[in-house]
């Protein structure tokens, strides 16, 4: 009988290089799933939130109900949200994405709407005077001016989504959350810590990336200050 190896895995240490090298593929797969779930839900959330916000801006009667419904959705705890959607989507990745989309709606709708409302009336009038139709007014004037506020909402929604994906572990689609869940049941410290740190790193990286994108697509906000 050979003696058990005396490495950090056997000693169950929090920080363990051997864990990183032996489980590289598992970690990589989890990160990819995490990124996919986050990206899909934020993108879908944006596609749903944008028309809702525009509708709430253009039609006064729509603002109240849209804001009320999205706020109520945000109040529902994430685990409960996944559970309530269970009969609709079953144990699938779609369930996690659907839950996260509903979450991001409050943040996105509120911020896009705030951005649209902050566009000065003179600017809208000037564009209308230049002969801009409602579509062109929206695309060429209102949306670009609403970008900084909308991007702030998008950043918060993305960072929140990265951290909420972990709860998807309850249905087996939680990206790095799966590793945390499994690590909890087997008392595997290195796995729990590594996956948790990776989650935070993804959130920070996503936030910085969006900040960079925001600076690139809104050069006038910097020119005005300089």
């Amino acid at each position: 009988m050979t003696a058990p190896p005396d490495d950090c895995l056997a000693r169950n240490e929090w920080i363990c290089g051997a864990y990183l090298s032996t489980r590289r593929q598992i970690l990589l797969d989890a990160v990819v799933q995490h990124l996919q779930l986050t990206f899909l839900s934020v993108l879908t959330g944006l596609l749903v939130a944008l028309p809702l916000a525009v509708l709430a801006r253009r039609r006064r009667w729509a603002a109240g109900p849209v804001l009320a419904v999205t706020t109520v959705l945000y109040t529902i705890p994430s685990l409960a949200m996944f559970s309530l959607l269970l009969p609709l989507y079953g144990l699938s990745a779609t369930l996690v994405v659907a839950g996260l989309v509903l979450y991001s709606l409050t943040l996105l709708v509120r911020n896009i709407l705030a951005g649209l409302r902050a566009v000065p009336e003179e600017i809208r009038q000037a564009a209308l005077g230049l002969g801009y139709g409602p579509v062109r007014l929206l695309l060429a004037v209102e949306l670009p001016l609403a970008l900084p506020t909308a991007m702030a909402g998008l950043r918060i929604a993305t960072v929140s989504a990265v951290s909420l994906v972990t709860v998807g572990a309850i249905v087996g689609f939680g990206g790095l959350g799966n590793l945390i869940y499994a690590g909890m049941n087997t008392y595997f410290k290195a796995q729990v810590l590594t996956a948790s740190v990776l989650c935070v790193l993804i959130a920070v990286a996503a936030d910085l990336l969006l900040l960079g994108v925001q600076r690139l697509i809104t050069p006038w906000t910097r020119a005005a200050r300089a």
Partner: protein
Amino acid sequence: MNTLAAAWEWLTDPAHWPGDDGIRHRLLQHLVLTVVCLLLSCLIALPVALVLGHLGRGGALAVNISNVGRAVPTFAVLVLLLLTPVGRWSEGPTVVALVLFAVPPLLTNAYVGMREVDRSVVQAARGMGMTGRQVLFHVELPLSFPLVLNGVRIAAVQLVATATIAALAGGGGLGRIITAGFNLASTPQVVAGALLVAGFALLVEGVFEAVERLAPVWARGGR
């Protein structure tokens, strides 16, 4: 509609209410956890926020802590705490994680509320000979009350949500009904648990709505 009916049947079945795993016990656990952690978080966050707001310092720090808090997954922190010495006390990880995540929104909202108080009003109070303490308690605090209360409300709703996730990491509360439902592959139980949690969260929102309405006029920001 079938699932909802089945969930309702599960919920109204008297056999599911008593006992340590029963709905009554889980509801009580959820309530106690939320209230205790809300009080603890307020005790930690509010004095700090009021002093910082009064002095006008540390604002960037308060906001940054709040933003970083969003990036850290609650579930990850719960499990990490569970594997540390805190985990030896049954509700330890839950309470520590809940307080840890409730402090930042409380801190930020109370700080911002304090800073939103009209500076000229503070100057006037000073000019009338009020001491710093008097300005804080008789001018700044009443005027910033609506925003401070809003922070408490955000923290409370977040606590209800976090207490649910705690069940994933072995904590008590209503989330236990959901996780048990998943383990039993019982969709009615999962949905029933979710309805209870969602109802609880909305109830907390409602309570704060009522508190805001009942607050004295000065505490409503003159609205």
